């Protein structure tokens, strides 16, 4: 039960009590006046009880269902005929000058207290009573007071009910707004999810174009070497070969074969790295961080090889409990960012940058550092770099999703992703991942 409900019940009880008191007072007046006309007196008493029952019923039953305004309107229609009946059969004026306005008053009061109407009613009734020379002016005044009290109570109840109705309407409005907001949030989440997917596809597309470039170079020299080996073999097998060409073929065959082997080795390494990245998304298990770093460097070679040298400082670290595909995505992201940061610093200057990739054990975690001597992160954007869609990169080079997704992935793994940066001097990202629990290890 809310405060409003409690107040309503209290005010309804008070109103009912006042109604009863008014009724009893009127009845006393009626009995006193009509003592010499028993038939009229009984009619009046019967009408009174009828009105009482209806009033009380209305107060308790209808108020709840219909609200104050309609209940009081109903009461006017109930009281009006009763008043007319009493007046007709008793010929008693008090009934008309109290009951009728009283009924009207309860209706008026419950909607809006009109003090002028109230005062006019009291003054009018008193004047009428004096004019009629009714000897019970004092009991009549008492009835008036009860009526006033009842009116005020009704007004308060009306106010409370109106307030409750307003509150209810506001709550409904709030509920509606809340529902809309929830729908919008859900829509936004869907959109963000879709964008994250789009970003992943875009990243894969970028990676694919870089990887294609990396593959095309060994394919080119393998292809040329094979052409040479074919034509050279034909030359060697020919009955009368050109001696100069034969000497050339003999001298270069071992080197051509070495190139074929080298090119195939490079292509194999790239394909193996791609397989690592495409690791099934669901599986989580012990993962070799150092191997993952080497994979990430193979895959991103086209991003950094023109701008920076990479230094690997891999420590002797335990396996981490991770989803290899996801962590590879994070590492690729960090290395690409390092290469871009160096590329940005290099505009108009050809000094090569340096990326230091390291791993070490740090308590129950493995700490992976990707440090570059690139452009650095501006103080003003430090707080924003993990926000989705925040980017300082040109269109086509990044959508601002990479680090947001990276952090989400790392959070899922129970790890941390943080950075330190000095403007113009470089940035170091630190990725900490929890070590895998060794199953079956003796305590």
């Amino acid at each position: 039960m809310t405060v409003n409900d409690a107040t309503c019940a209290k005010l309804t009880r008070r109103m009912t009590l006042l109604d009863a008191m008014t009724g009893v007072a009127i009845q006393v007046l009626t009995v006193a006046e009509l003592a010499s006309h028993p038939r009229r007196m009984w009619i009046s008493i019967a009408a009174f009880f009828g009105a009482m029952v209806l009033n009380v019923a209305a107060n308790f039953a209808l108020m709840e269902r219909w609200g104050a305004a309609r209940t009081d309107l109903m009461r006017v229609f109930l009281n009006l005929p009763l008043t007319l009946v009493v007046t007709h059969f008793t010929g008693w004026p008090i009934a008309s000058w109290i009951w009728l306005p009283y009924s009207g008053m309860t209706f008026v009061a419950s909607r809006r207290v009109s003090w002028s109407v109230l005062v006019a009613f009291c003054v009018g009734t008193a004047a009428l009573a004096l004019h009629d020379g009714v000897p019970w002016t004092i009991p009549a005044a008492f009835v008036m007071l009860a009526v006033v009290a009842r009116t005020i109570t009704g007004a308060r109840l009306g106010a409370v009910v109106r307030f409750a109705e307003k509150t209810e309407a506001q709550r409904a409005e709030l509920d509606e707004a809340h529902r809309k907001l929830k729908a919008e949030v859900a829509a936004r989440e869907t959109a963000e999810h879709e964008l994250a997917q789009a970003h992943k596809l875009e990243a894969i597309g970028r990676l694919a174009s870089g990887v294609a470039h990396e593959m095309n170079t060994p394919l080119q020299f393998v292809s040329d070497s094979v052409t040479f080996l074919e034509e050279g073999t034909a030359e060697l097998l020919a009955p009368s070969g050109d001696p100069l060409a034969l000497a050339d073929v003999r001298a270069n065959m071992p080197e051509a074969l070495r190139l074929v082997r080298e090119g195939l080795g490079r292509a194999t390494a790239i394909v193996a790295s791609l397989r690592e990245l495409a690791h099934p998304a669901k599986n989580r298990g012990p993962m070799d961080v150092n191997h993952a770093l080497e994979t990430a460097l193979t895959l991103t070679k086209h991003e950094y090889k023109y701008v920076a040298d990479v230094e690997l400082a891999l420590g002797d670290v335990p396996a981490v409990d991770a989803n290899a595909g996801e962590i590879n995505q994070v590492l690729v992201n960090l290395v690409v960012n390092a290469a871009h940061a160096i590329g940005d610093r290099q505009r108009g200057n050809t000094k090569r940058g340096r990326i230091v990739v390291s791993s070490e054990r740090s308590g129950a975690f493995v700490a992976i550092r990707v440090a570059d001597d690139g452009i650095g992160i501006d103080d003003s954007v430090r707080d924003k770099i993990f926000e989705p869609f925040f980017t300082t990169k040109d269109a086509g080079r990044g959508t601002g999703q990479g680090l947001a997704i990276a952090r989400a992935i790392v959070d899922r793994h129970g790890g941390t992703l943080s950075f330190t940066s000095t403007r113009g001097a470089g940035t170091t990202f630190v990725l900490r991942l929890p070590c895998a629990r060794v199953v079956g290890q003796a305590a």
Partner: protein
Amino acid sequence: MKTVLFVDDERSVLDALRFALFRSKWKLVFACGARAALEEIARQRFDAVVTDLTMPEMDGVELLARVRVEQPDAVRIILTGNIEKTAADRARQVVDEVLAKPCGASVLRECLARRLGETPIPSSQGGILPSPRIP
């Protein structure tokens, strides 16, 4: 004898090109990187320059832009493994031909022969499928 300059930042690519073109009748010059290429251009006249696109220091388009100024008669060809369309479009403005890596030796030979105004050499060894030129 026509002289052709090949430029790439990968030694292996140049070596393999040298092997694959061992029977050609052109004089072949190889430069590893754009800087070495500029030195060669300053030293002698070329009938054609075939260069990689993505290289450190100076890329193929910049290099060929220099070639156009210094040796306007030289045929300019890009041989690139870059599959992005924008790079190829940018290249097209200063070059006569864009070839995609991996490019079969026969395709390269035919392209050079045609550009140098010679009768195309029939390729007896089809060996590797010629890759399509970037459209």
